[in-house]
């Protein structure tokens, strides 16, 4: 089975990468008011119960994939 994890800078956290992307987009003529840059992590996992997998990934996010002080995360489990 597959899972995708989205890691984002928490609201209010300064995101200089997002600011640079936003200003570049504006220079290209795109009317973008804000851009925030996060990270996508695609995982291939052993087939297991989706709920158990989600709980496991929750722990993976807390322990490694995100820094809960500055980042939020979303877990999507496929199939």
């Amino acid at each position, binding site marked *: 089975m597959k899972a995708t994890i989205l890691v984002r800078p928490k609201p209010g*956290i*300064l995101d*200089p*990468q997002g600011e*640079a992307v936003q200003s570049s987009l504006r220079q290209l003529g795109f009317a973008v008011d804000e851009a925030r840059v996060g990270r996508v992590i695609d995982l291939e996992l052993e087939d297991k119960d989706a709920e158990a997998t989600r709980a496991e990934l929750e722990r993976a996010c807390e322990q*490694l*994939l995100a*820094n809960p*002080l*500055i980042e939020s995360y979303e877990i999507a489990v496929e199939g």
Partner: protein
Amino acid sequence: MSAAPPPRIAVLVFPGSNDDRDAALALERLGAEPKLVWHAEPELPDVGAVVLPGGFSYGDYLRCGAIARFAPVLEAVRRFADDGGLVLGICNGFQVLCEAGLLPGALRPNASLEFVCSDVTLRLERTDTPFTSRANAGQTLTIPIKHGEGCYFADDELLEELERNGQVVLRYERNPNGSIAAIAGVTNERGNVFGLMPHPEHAVDPLLGSTDGVLVLGSLVDAARERLLTAA
């Protein structure tokens, strides 16, 4: 003068560390006996203090310090710190200690998104720590920084706690990276773990432009010596 043997201080080496030897050299010049300790070691040798040096441990993958915190030696460092042992993290070492939860807060990419490499002036907020005892109150230090991710972050609640407990030891006179409250170095609540972005090991000889790093590393050597003497 006492004829006490030089205090041993561990300098950790991760794949990607690059200031380990500079740190060891500086400690040696200040009268310590540095011991380089590879990241895969499960135990620390008998030492009076531990230094986590600068560099790019594990390529800084994911987040700076995020992978290094799982190194076997970090468990030994955690036990050492729990027993009150002195731990100093410089630059990447500071990032590792934050990721490991041994220090509060987090380090984010510089607000400018640029790597900064220059001497900075630092205001010393505390001289009663094992890491700053050689300095005088109100003194400013000139020590170089060289980092891309040194923007210290703590949320409002944590920042208030740090200020209340006096855990902010160093502040930039002119904020080079967007750090909250211009914080350049903090300790844990107990005061035995200290992390800073500036590199004291690069400021121990007039040839390098400053010797103010001696005030930090020399204080650590003094404290490590004292700790080993009282333990003996």
